[in-house]
């Protein structure tokens, strides 16, 4: 499975047994969390965690989870096909997916395909709308999606098995296990899905031909105290996905796509009084093969390896003042059909300051990257929050973020442009958080000024090339709300989100394509004794598909409804059945890419 893991295991076995560990409270986050900055560097921004039960309500694709639970738009090339995000009206490469603190957007395309992240192997998934390039790097403009694993040292072993069976010959299984003693914590996850995905397009008699997919994801997280003040943490994730790319109504397809991605991260963390030292080595590998004709061996491919060295020194200046200095080095080597000499090196220095006054907490951070390929802007972030009362908290944030040119942008042979500059975004937001007994909601207004947008456009000879072209202003309002109540044996919860987004090209004054002005989600659950029920729904406003705003896709609404039953308590066995797209809505997020109509899914979960 993973050579690095075995080497590490051997190394750990060789370590002498140590005394039982009592972790000081102020180290706890550093020990347990893989990405402590998500907590300490988000003072001015909302971080919203999606619970396990929500994750399991959808098939294990990041896109399926997020389209029902966030007010953002996702564009899907058919079910299971290439999917990208538009958060706060930004483009696909302006959202960063972050795995245990490491940005895993493709080096080749600059974006993450949201159908190539299996959600079944992470301990928690969070969204963090707004900028974050100082900590999360390129693409953290519209927002960041965080896939995290965490450790516990509670001497408990627990296991969870999950299986699902659905329409269109869809089978899903996953296993997650946690093993720990005082010194060592091991977390294993594996999750897979396979589907024929041969649904009939609603309203037609045409079947989604050539849409079958399967993927498997493995995740290992291991932490071990090598002394009272030194801990080693290792995270490894492997993803293998095979997909047929279905055609459209007009475009038959026989193409096939293979993804093979691996991510490994080793961190050595040491505590010396007021100092916390963290040394990280990460090695990421991404590879794809594209077969235009799946019956043929002819294919194109691309791969990129990324090596990262990162040193982070944390200084606790006083109980409420923290300073971090970070130096890092990244080496990226890409190759593929149509890509030549795609190597690049990036050096970076960051300084992060966090100050916690009783009611007022703020952070200030800076980052400068140095690289040979393009000039990097000085990135910064200033954020804070003020607690006016138990009910009301005000957040603010200002930051400069960027999206660097991807390997394809720079080196693609037909058009790659090595003169490109990074896209830069100067952005501001103001957030209000209200908490009233069972009710909480967040309302955030944002503004972004994105310049030097990288766009592939035809040059005078008709060759498509990326150029730094337009400038865009994005602004809008974003709402997240929830209500939860327990009354005797009745448990009920509701949550909703909504975003109003304008994303205006400053040259043409038109809305950018594939950015809906409105999106609304609404979901809820009810539980009594052994029985539970839930629903999920969203409404996606119309989206323009042409930059002259002459063509648009119709709005659509989806509704899923499920029922659950807790069969046993020890081991806990939980059964669930759900109907997805209950009203058989005929919808598409890309023209011609019709999505599935009504379907059924049944699941069983066993915890022991």
């Amino acid at each position, binding site marked *: 499975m993973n050579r690095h893991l075995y080497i590490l295991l051997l190394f750990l076995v060789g370590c002498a047994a140590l005394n039982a560990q009592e972790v000081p409270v102020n180290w706890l986050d550093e020990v347990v969390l893989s990405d402590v900055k998500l907590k300490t560097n988000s003072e001015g921004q909302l971080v919203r965690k999606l619970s396990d039960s929500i994750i399991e309500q959808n098939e294990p694709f990041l896109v399926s989870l997020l389209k029902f639970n966030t007010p953002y738009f996702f564009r899907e090339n058919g079910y299971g096909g290439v999917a990208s995000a538009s958060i706060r009206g930004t483009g696909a490469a302006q959202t960063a997916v972050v795995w245990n603190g490491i940005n895993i957007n493709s080096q080749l395309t600059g974006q993450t395909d949201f159908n190539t992240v299996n959600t079944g192997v992470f301990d928690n998934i969070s969204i963090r709308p707004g900028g974050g390039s100082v900590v999360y790097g390129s693409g953290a403009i519209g927002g960041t999606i965080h896939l995290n694993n965490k450790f516990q040292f509670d001497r408990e072993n627990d296991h969870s098995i999950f299986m699902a069976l659905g329409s269109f010959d869809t089978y899903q299984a996953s296993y997650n296990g946690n093993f720990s003693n005082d010194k060592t914590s091991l977390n294993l996850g594996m999750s897979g899905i396979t589907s024929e995905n041969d649904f009939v397009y609603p309203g037609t008699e045409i079947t989604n031909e050539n849409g079958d997919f399967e993927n498997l994801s493995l995740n290992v997280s291991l932490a071990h105290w090598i002394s009272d003040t030194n801990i080693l943490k290792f995270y490894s994730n492997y993803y293998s996905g095979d997909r047929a790319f279905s*055609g*459209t*109504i*007009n*475009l038959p397809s026989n193409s096939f796509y293979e993804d093979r991605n691996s991510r490994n991260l080793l961190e050595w963390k040491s505590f010396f009084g007021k100092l916390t030292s963290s040394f990280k080595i990460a090695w990421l590998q991404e590879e794809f093969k594209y077969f*235009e*004709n799946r019956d*043929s061996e*002819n294919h194109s491919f691309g791969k990129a390896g990324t090596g990262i060295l990162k040193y982070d020194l944390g200084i606790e200046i006083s109980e409420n003042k923290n300073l971090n200095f970070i130096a890092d080095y990244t080496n990226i080597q890409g190759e593929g059909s*149509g890509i030549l000499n795609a190597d690049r090196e990036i050096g970076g220095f960051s300084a992060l300051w966090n100050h916690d006054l009783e009611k007022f907490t703020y952070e200030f951070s800076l980052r400068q990257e140095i690289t040979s390929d393009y000039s990097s802007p000085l990135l910064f972030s200033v954020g804070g929050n003020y607690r006016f009362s138990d009910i009301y908290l005000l957040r603010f944030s200002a930051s400069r973020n960027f999206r660097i040119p991807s390997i394809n942008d720079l080196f693609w*042979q*037909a*058009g*790659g442009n090595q003169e490109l500059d990074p896209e830069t975004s100067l952005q501001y937001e103001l957030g209000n958080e209200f908490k009233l007994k069972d009710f909480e909601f967040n309302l955030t207004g944002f503004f972004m000024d994105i310049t030097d947008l990288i*766009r592939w*456009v*035809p040059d*005078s*000879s*008709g*060759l498509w090339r990326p150029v730094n072209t337009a400038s865009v202003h994005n602004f809008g309002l974003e709402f997240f709300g929830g209500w939860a109540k327990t009354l005797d044996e009745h448990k009920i919860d509701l949550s909703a989100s909504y975003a109003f987004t304008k994303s205006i090209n400053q040259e043409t004054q038109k809305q950018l*394509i594939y950015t809906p002005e409105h999106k609304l989600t609404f979901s809820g659950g009810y539980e009594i004794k052994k029985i539970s029920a839930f629903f999920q729904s969203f409404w996606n406003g119309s989206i323009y*598909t*042409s*930059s*002259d*705003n*002459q*063509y648009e896709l119709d709005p659509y609404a989806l509704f899923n409804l499920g029922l659950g039953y807790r069969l046993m308590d020890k081991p806990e066995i939980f059964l669930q059945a759900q109907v997805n797209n209950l009203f058989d809505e005929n919808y598409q997020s890309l*023209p*011609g890419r019709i999505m599935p109509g009504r379907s059924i899914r049944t699941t069983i979960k066993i915890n022991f």
Partner: protein
Amino acid sequence: MNYKHYLALFCLVFIFNSCDDDTDCCPMPEEETQFESGIFVLNEGNFGSGNASVSFIDSENEQISNNIFSNVNSRDLGDTAQSIEMVGELALIVLNVSNRLEIVNRYTFESLGTIDAELNNPRYAVVEGDKIYVSNWGDGMDPDDDFLSIFSLNDLSFLGSVPVPEGPEKMVVTNNTIYVAHTGGFSFNNIVSVVDTQTNSIIKEIEVGDQPNSMVVQGIDLWVLASGKPAYADEETPGELSRIDITSNELAETYEFPESSFHPSNLSLADGSAYFTAGKALFRYNFDFNLPETAEFSFDEISVLYGFEIRDGKIYIASPNSDFTGNGNLYIYDLANGSLLEQFPVGINPNGIYFN
């Protein structure tokens, strides 16, 4: 260089040029029809989106009608319209992604028939006698499956196919012979193949410049303009203009442009001169043995020069929206001085201009 020969050629050109191209003289319909006289613009639409369309600008009142195929026939045209062949009373519309040929009456745009078999990645159609020939790329990545498919013009039945070298694109018919320019599909090719329509077989492959993109017949000469390989190819090559003697099917002359970054296309004949474009600029060749070094003028209003025609002293350019997502425009310029005469908004990604 043989200047005497060029001089002879020049004289020949001058003499033969007096008879104009045959598109001028099409049979008129018996009664007045909706599309009797005007300009068609073929809008290829977005790949995979099934939104190809045809726009028509009436020469009487300069009124533009969009989506004329679907308005007349109450169904969508199809996906990624590549080209139209106007022949007799017919218009043959080649739909690349739909793998379909729509045959309509060119004056009413009423559908007369559809061919949707034995086509694979079709590009262009021509008619010789009572047979339709369609160039097909086959699987874009497979260099060995390209072919011409042949159909009966009478009943649209499939008559057979001719395997051809990679990337068959535009075709020219004369005297039972089809000249096929092979740009190379997803790859690069540098061949004009000669197909005998009596035997339906290739009788000759003539090597020309890389990526031959346009051909015109003038008297006994077939002029072939090749764009050369682009900058991203293994080796960038300049455009070439070649003359093939169609009585012998021999390559008679080849002129190579001096700059390897010069990639011309859209060879057209008008007023005794040859015109072609490079980028957004127009060049004129006077058959004077010297390739033009400077542009006549350039078309600054357009986003992309995607479709190009010269007719009756006017230049017609189809230009998509700059990012190929929305509606494009038809621009009409004065051939004499390059001034913009008119402009019409058309459909998505216009790629060709045709006339009634």
